[in-house]
């Protein structure tokens, strides 16, 4: 048994949005990169996502949104996390999010938004940097 464990990431979809190919692709990629991934499935409420994240003590939450409701849903998730005193959990997003909304998401503390065409290698390195401060080179596993 090692002293440290792989980082834990929750991946889910919030709101009325059932397009989960992208989310499932990310789940597989993160698993292969050495993370422990908790997948919540589609059409979840922000409350369900945040509760699951707290109970599972995750290091990051990644939400996929293709519905256009990203501003409302992500701000609610960020607000709930703050209410729980869990701002330390890295919140990132993926999906069809236009340029003009990026500044607003940044104001919520969401600095990593992966949009159509984002390279997997870029997604993984950005998460690694967010979760380990860029020290580790071996994906999620820090052992």
């Amino acid at each position, binding site marked *: *048994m090692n002293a440290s464990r792989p980082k834990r990431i929750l991946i889910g979809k919030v709101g009325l949005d059932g397009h989960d190919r992208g989310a499932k692709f990310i789940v597989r990629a993160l698993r292969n990169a050495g993370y422990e991934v908790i*997948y*919540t499935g589609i059409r*979840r409420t922000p*409350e369900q996502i945040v509760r699951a994240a707290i*109970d599972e003590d995750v290091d990051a939450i990644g939400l996929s949104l293709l519905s256009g409701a990203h501003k409302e849903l992500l701000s609610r998730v960020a607000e709930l996390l703050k209410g729980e005193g869990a701002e330390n959990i890295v919140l990132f997003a993926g999906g069809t999010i236009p340029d003009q909304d990026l500044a607003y998401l940044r104001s919520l503390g969401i600095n990593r938004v992966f949009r159509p065409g984002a390279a997997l290698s870029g997604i993984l390195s950005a998460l690694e940097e967010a979760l380990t401060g860029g020290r580790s080179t071996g994906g999620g596993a820090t052992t």
Partner: protein
Amino acid sequence: MDALIDKIRRGDRRSLARAMSLADKAGQEAQALKDRLRRSTGNVPWWGFTGPPGVGKSTLIDTLLGMLRQRGCRVGVVAVDPTSPVSDGALLGDRVRMMRHAVDEEVFIRSLATHRREGGLSDATLHCARLLELAGYDPVLIETVGVGQNEVDVAGVTDICVVIVGAGYGDDIQLTKAGLLEIADILVVNKCDLPDANRLLNEVREQLVLSSSATSGQAVYSDLTKSPGGTPDRKQASPGCTPKGMAPEVVGIEAKSGKDVDHLLEKLLELDRAARQPQQRQRHKQTRVLSEIRHSAMLVCEQALEDRLVAPATKELIAGLERGELSLDQVVRELSVISCQLSVEREPPRSGGRRLRTDG
């Protein structure tokens, strides 16, 4: 440590969740927590759920959660999924079947990865179940990874062991093989809406009559044909397992629609009541601690052996075996002796070493 324990007892979810992460690690702080938990728990029955991948374990737990909540129970769940042997990552996907309970204050679900432990559970399972107990969850449900024929660790840890099979499990030869089916206190045939289910249900029943009558034979048939059964004596011979000679209940259900799950729950609650008797509690505490000692001691030995195998002096032994100058038996004996000395002499640099000292 006491402050953390207090917070968990008062129902602070974040403290509970963080303590679970700590219990999933090695190190002195984690060890102190684990030892502390052992003292303060052991009074709540744990229900284990095991069976092949995709048979409906998580779905059944989801349905049972709904029914237990209606009865006013606060329920804790520990769900284990496998760690990748390639990347060390894992997909923890049991929770996705239980999301409707995600915002229920009286339900706590935690997903764990095996971290390559074999046997169907992870090292942290026992500690997380104890933490749930400490936080007032009762009963505690434990879901194993999808198992094959021989991952039966769950029987040594839980009070009630539910084995779930479903249509497509295999023919009577598969059912005759030793292992999984033998550890059941209740044997559930799920997906009874499928055409194959009746055949399986009948074959399982016949199989259990035969295997039970081989050892004792008395009262087996009446038990199987659903006499009210489930007496407190059922579990005395071997905690976590129905005594030899007593066939487990066989229950056919449809986990997803909930059909006949109420019948299963009645059976579970019957066994749960029996498991709460003081004599049974004592027995189960002992069984759990024994399984902890056994597992921790094995980790120490394995590590010592691994260290020894890569040591320069071992090269001679390996070469000797290759050249045919030594027998395998000689090499193994040499390694075992050295390994045992090592594990005794070593200052405890790893979790296993400390654990053995504490427990044993």
